[in-house]
């Protein structure tokens, strides 16, 4: 049986149903991310696990025990907030000790545990600092230590990195992942940043309008999006309109160029229009590029983005973007030039919904 189980979870605020029939089983020690745009209900699910919101329906079970009648301070759950939420009137050590003091642990044990926690986040030397004397990244590490100090059953992270600078965001997410693996603590991480979710998680739940659109490992989510929403939200994507030529042989045409798909087309007939998806990094215009499929088109723009150069070309009615890694010797295609993009037919996904 799973460690943390959410069954038919629902939540309405007045007439607005924010979470609709949410189901999820999380194993002990798993790192799960809830990924979705703002308003998709991901934070509400987290807050129901923490006990800050009461579900309108459904059950939450942790380690076999229903949480329905437990108040937030009875659940033994660690929580880290976007706004750090360190107690401004306490220094670092007092913040970390707070949960243990409330639990009435003996002083020696508290001191020992605080020391251990500060070692874990590598801030031993700042034990006497007050929150306002520290950077955002340091504050968030203290918040993590504070949440972990009372040995919670589950760790909940509510967009803990959103308020930080880009470089600190990357290093802190790696630190969080490391600590989580070291302690083996079951963790739920809420974010709207797909790179964050992809790089840190065992599994990702992509949420859309109060439901889980897809649950899976990062590579699954990215490479085999289940819905148009997932395909669009996770990564950049070209949506290409294609006309069915021959359903039996999976033949379609994009503009006036024929392409044979790998996936069966399903229940369509010749002349129907279908949507295909292609990631900008899936193809290449290099003369020696591999791939069993090619599309030619006129370049409408090229954009230098730093590590990649993004080029847009027009094929039929669709604009297709593709990326090349920048290198000093590379001459990007010129607007108006006709280029041929080669890729593997299986990279063309059929978007159904």
């Amino acid at each position, binding site marked *: 049986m799973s460690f943390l189980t959410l069954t038919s979870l629902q939540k309405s605020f007045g007439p607005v149903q924010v979470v609709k029939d949410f189901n999820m089983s999380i194993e002990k020690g798993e790192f799960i991310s809830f990924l979705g745009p703002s308003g998709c209900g991901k934070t509400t699910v987290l807050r129901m696990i923490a006990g800050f919101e009461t579900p309108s329906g459904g059950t939450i079970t942790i380690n076999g025990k229903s949480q329905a009648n437990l108040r937030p301070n009875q659940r033994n759950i660690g929580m880290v*907030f976007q*706004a750090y*939420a360190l107690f401004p009137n306490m220094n670092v050590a007092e913040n970390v000790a707070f949960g243990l003091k*409330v639990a009435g642990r003996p002083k020696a044990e508290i001191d020992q545990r605080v020391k251990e926690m500060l070692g874990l986040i590598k801030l031993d030397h700042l034990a006497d600092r007050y929150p306002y004397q520290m950077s955002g990244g340091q504050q968030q590490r203290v918040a993590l230590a504070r949440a972990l100090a009372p040995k919670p059953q589950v760790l909940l992270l509510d967009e803990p990195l959103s308020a930080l600078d880009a470089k600190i965001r990357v290093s802190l997410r790696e630190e969080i992942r490391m600590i989580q693996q070291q302690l083996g603590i079951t963790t739920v991480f809420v974010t709207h940043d797909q790179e964050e979710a992809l790089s840190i998680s065992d599994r990702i739940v992509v949420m859309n309008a109060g439901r889980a659109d897809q649950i899976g490992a990062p590579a699954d989510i990215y490479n085999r999006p289940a819905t148009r929403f997932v395909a669009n939200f996770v990564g950049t994507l070209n949506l290409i309109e294609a006309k069915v030529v021959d359903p039996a042989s999976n033949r379609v045409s994009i503009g006036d160029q024929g392409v044979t798909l790998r996936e069966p087309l399903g229940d369509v007939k010749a002349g129907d229009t279908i949507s295909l998806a292609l990631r900008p990094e899936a193809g290449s215009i290099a003369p020696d590029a591999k791939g069993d499929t090619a599309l030619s088109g006129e370049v409408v723009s090229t954009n230098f983005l730093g590590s990649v150069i993004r080029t847009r070309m027009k094929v039929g009615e669709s604009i297709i973007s593709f990326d090349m890694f920048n290198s000093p010797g590379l001459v990007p295609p010129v607007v108006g030039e006709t280029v041929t993009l080669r890729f593997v037919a299986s990279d063309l996904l059929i978007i159904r919904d």
Partner: protein
Amino acid sequence: MKKFWAWGALIFGLLYFILPLIGMTNFSLKMRRGVYSLDAYAVVLGDPRFQETFTYSILMALATIVFGVVLVVPTAYWVRLKLPGLRPYIEFVTLLPLVIPAIVIVFGYIRLYNTSSWLPLTGSITGTNILLMFGYATLALPYMYRSVDTGLRAIDIATLTEAAQSLGAGWTTILAKIILPNVLVAVLSGAFLTFAIVIGEFTMAALLNRPAFGPYMQLLGANRAYEPAALAVMSFVLTWGCLGLIQLVSRFQKGAQSPA
């Protein structure tokens, strides 16, 4: 443009505050004909009725402050946390004492709690004192509430509360360990304003016939020349000193706690 404002501020300050103060201070020192002396101050301080009324008013002020803090801090916290929709109404209620003349409040109290009512507070001295304290608390409510409310706005009480809850803390712990320490300066500044209001209040104390400092000041003002000036200067110095103290405390607090 800058010059215009600087001059305006200067003239405004002079006409409004500084010149009247200087004039009054000057006058208060002239009780002994022809020379400057502290006679007026000596007379005031030596008056047993000054001592009596001043002590009474200080005790009443302290009682009012304790009552106000116990009433306002949890209420303001709770309203911000759980009933933000009620905030405009609460603000409205706390504004009422500003605009309802004190006489109305006292008059209502007397009618309601007189010796023949179901709660005959005016029948005993203690009862009347309690009634007066209620009246003072009403007068001070706007300042205390706004001060505490502003203090609460400066910290993210919703998240701090949830953080404390997730660490196992109950309501008492949250109020005592997290909320109160973080709004201490606001509470102090509200307390000081309450103090100043109670010390100076006239109408209620007079109507309830209690030996407070306000009526004494009024009496002195009507019958003497130099003593009220001395009293005014003294109360100004007291006020200024307390305000300075508040500024000091709040600066110290800022140094220790503001988010850099």
